[in-house]
Structure formats: structure tokens, C-alpha cells
């Protein structure tokens, strides 16, 4: 969503602001849906496209001089985001300049959110408060929560965030996967093993040719039930085992992280693939890209525990992406990718274009990371 602030009237003075320059906008009054604002100290009347209180300060970028039009959340001329720009923004907002405040502003610009002083201060405080390192994706979730809710609501939700995000989603998925492997090896409880397996395992060895795809879907509902099942086993005194406590703890973190991620239109997920009687963990993530003006498009990142990694953008008609070749056998990879492309086109009418990245190629990992679907790689 791009916010443009169009100045309706002014006090007959011409704007002195240069095209593409940064301006500060101070909200000094509201009357009948209109806002009185000071743009770099000059008085204007306008309709702000977002909810702000009197006294709020925003930073915008001049996109048109006559009439004066200011963009509030699109800094396309500042794609080469650098320290001088970030310092200039903080200086205009009268916020202390240090690494954390600069990181916060950079994060907001990356997430295409308006530079609203009170929100920035809240983000800086939140980033300072969390006791653990956050991935880029988790930091984006924080931004989206702060910009969507008022300060009081966010402050309460932040309590849930702090309790749930001390472990990354991928680590939680890995822990649940390992619990499943452990249950399989020890068979403490056949019923629990089968229930967990049904929820997470994608079995390619089934002879029907039709896999049950539910292990690829959101597991919140089923994990709530599974959590209750473990509690019952414990209550009945059948088992009190560390493995159960760990599994319960990870199911709980999964549930709350998923519900919070959902708010940010980010959908991390995992599945345990069974193939040729072997198992492996696959992590994947969808990110709704409508915020970036791609209609019905999803950023997709699929990664196996063995290093295979496909990253790209999926629309209703096409997929453009990159496959990291950690496998070595270039001919085989090319053939399988080609088969995949043909299958997608013939079966689903989906045009697929996958570039194979040689991991020995200089900077190939960085290329993938810059796609902005990086949380899976970064964790």
C-alpha cells in the first residue's frame, strides 16, 4: 500500500522543497476530516491518508512540486539506502542516531511503511527489549504489528511475541521433527506417534499415487488437539517424559508464532518427507506480496534439511525463481528442473522459469538472500 499525501491548499507560499527531497510533516490540527500540517515549517491543509494524532511527525519524500505531492511510504529514490539518508531522517525526527535507531528506520523503509515518529520510537523500544536475536522476517512481523495496532494494543501483543519468538520458527519445526523421529525410534506411545505422523509426514512411498497433502497445510488446529492429547496422556499418569514436555513446548510455540505470522501475511510451514523409507525435513514459507503491488503473488522459499533451496515468486500464471545447486550433478539437476517445468506447464498451465545457481558461483547465496524471502536461509 503506497500512501501519497497530496497538499490541497496552502498559505499561497510556494513550496521550497526540492523534488525527491525529504521533508518533515508535523500535524498541528484537525478539522472536519482535514489536517493542518507544517511541511518543513510551512503551513498546509491536507487529508492525511493514515490515522495520526495531533503532534505526530512524519517524514515524506517530495514526488511532485506543483501541486505539492509527498510520498509517505515509498522511497524508491532511496533504494541505495545508506547511512547519510538514515541519519538525515533521524535528525529530522529528532531521534538519537545510533546503530539501533538506524536499523529501525531501514527496516521500516524495507517494509514500505510510513515513517511515523511515534511508531519508530515504539519499534526502537521493542527491538531493544527483546532478549534474543530476531531474524529479518521476525523483525518485519514486529513492524507490521506496530503499524497496524495502536500503542496500547501493541504493548499487550508484544508480551505474547516475547513469549513465543525466543526460538525461531525453523528451530521449532526442527524440534517437532526430531520429536517425531524420537517417538518412531522408541515408540513410547503408538497413538501419539501415529497422530503426530498424520499431521506432519508427507509420504511419497504410499502406493496410491495420491498423497495426502494436509501435512503441507496450516497445522494450528491439529496441534491444539495434539497438545490436548499429550496433556491427557500425562494426566492419566501413563507417561511423564521429557520428550513430551519438549514436544508440548514446541507445539505451543508453533501455534502462537503461526497466529502472529498470519497477521503479517507470512506463512512459514514444515513437513517431514518420507521417501524410500528415509525421512527428511522440508521447511517452506509463503509470503503474500500484495504489499509490494504484485497482485495475488507469493514469495516462496522451500528448503530441505540437506541444503536444496528453491526461492522465487509465484503468481497465478507463472513462477520465477532460483534453485541453489548444492548437489553437484549439474546434468541431473538441469534434467529434473526441466521435467518440473514441463509438468507444471502441462498439468497446471503454470509457466515456470528456474535459474540454477551454482553454489561455487561467487555471491550466489547473497543473490538468494536479497530476494527478501531470507528468513529461512538466515535462521
Amino acid at each position, binding site marked *: 500500500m503506497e500512501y501519497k499525501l497530496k497538499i490541497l491548499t496552502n498559505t499561497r507560499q510556494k513550496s521550497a522543497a526540492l523534488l525527491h527531497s525529504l521533508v518533515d510533516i508535523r500535524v498541528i490540527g484537525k478539522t472536519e476530516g482535514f489536517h493542518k500540517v507544517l511541511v518543513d515549517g510551512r503551513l498546509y491543509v491536507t487529508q492525511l491518508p493514515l490515522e495520526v494524532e495531533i503532534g505526530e511527525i512524519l517524514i515524506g519524500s517530495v514526488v511532485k512540486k506543483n501541486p505539492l505531492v509527498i510520498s509517505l511510504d515509498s522511497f524508491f529514490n532511496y533504494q541505495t539506502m545508506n547511512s547519510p539518508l538514515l541519519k538525515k531522517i533521524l535528525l529530522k525526527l529528532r531521534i538519537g542516531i545510533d546503530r539501533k535507531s538506524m536499523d529501525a528506520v531501514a527496516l521500516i523503509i524495507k517494509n514500505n511503511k510510513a515513517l511515523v515518529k511515534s511508531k519508530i520510537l515504539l519499534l526502537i523500544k521493542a527491538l531493544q527489549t527483546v532478549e534474543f536475536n530476531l531474524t529479518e522476517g521476525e523483525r518485519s512481523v514486529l513492524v507490521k504489528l506496530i503499524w497496524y495496532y495502536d500503542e496500547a494494543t501493541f504493548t499487550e501483543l508484544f508480551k505474547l511475541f516475547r513469549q513465543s519468538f525466543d526460538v525461531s520458527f525453523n528451530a521449532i519445526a526442527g524440534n517437532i521433527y526430531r520429536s517425531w523421529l524420537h517417538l518412531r525410534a522408541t515408540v513410547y506411545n503408538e497413538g501419539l506417534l501415529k497422530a503426530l505422523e498424520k499431521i506432519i509426514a508427507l509420504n511419497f512411498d504410499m502406493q496410491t499415487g495420491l498423497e495426502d497433502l494436509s501435512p503441507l497445510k496450516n497445522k494450528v488446529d491439529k496441534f491444539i488437539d495434539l497438545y490436548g492429547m499429550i*496433556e491427557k496422556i500425562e494426566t492419566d499418569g501413563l507417561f511423564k517424559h521429557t520428550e513430551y514436555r519438549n514436544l508440548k513446548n514446541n507445539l505451543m510455540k508453533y501455534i*502462537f508464532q503461526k497466529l502472529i505470522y498470519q497477521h503479517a501475511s507470512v506463512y512459514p510451514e514444515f*513437513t517431514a518427507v518420507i521417501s524410500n523409507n528415509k525421512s527428511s525435513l522440508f521447511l517452506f514459507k509463503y509470503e503474500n506480496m500484495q504489499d509490494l503491488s504484485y497482485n495475488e503473488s507469493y514469495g516462496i522459499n522451500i528448503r530441505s534439511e540437506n*541444503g536444496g533451496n528453491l526461492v522465487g515468486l509465484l503468481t497465478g500464471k507463472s513462477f520465477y525463481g532460483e534453485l541453489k545447486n548444492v548437489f553437484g550433478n549439474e546434468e541431473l539437476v538441469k534434467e529434473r528442473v526441466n521435467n518440473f517445468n514441463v509438468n507444471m506447464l502441462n498439468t497446471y498451465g503454470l509457466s515456470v522459469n528456474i535459474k540454477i545457481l551454482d553454489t561455487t558461483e561467487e555471491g550466489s547465496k547473497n543473490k538468494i538472500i536479497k530476494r527478501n524471502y531470507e528468513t529461512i536461509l538466515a535462521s
Partner: protein
Amino acid sequence: MKTKQKYNRLKKVLKNLSGNLEENTVINRFLEDKLGKINETSPQLYFTVNAIKMINDIESKTNRVV
């Protein structure tokens, strides 16, 4: 299952998070709202399952192990 039923079950899970969060009305409202909006089907499923198959196939053929 209705959202309210799901949420009542979820409250038992919430109880086990420290900080008495189960009594927090803002958090309660947020969770109930999000529970009601879970999208159980995904338009990306067919793509994901085939992509996983492809990667898994390549890995098994190259005998790649961690």
C-alpha cells in the same frame, strides 16, 4: 470446528505460557480473531508438493546426506 471451540482449547495452551497471558483480553481477542481466519487450503499446494518432490528426487539421486 467453530472458532469459539478452537479458542477454548487454545486457552489451555495459552495457560502454559508464562506471565498469566491467558487473562489478557487483548491477546485473547487477537488469538480468537486469527484462529477464525486460518486458511486451511492453499493455492500454492500443488506447486509446493511438486517442488519438494523435485528437490527430494535430486537429493536421493545424488545421495546427498547431511
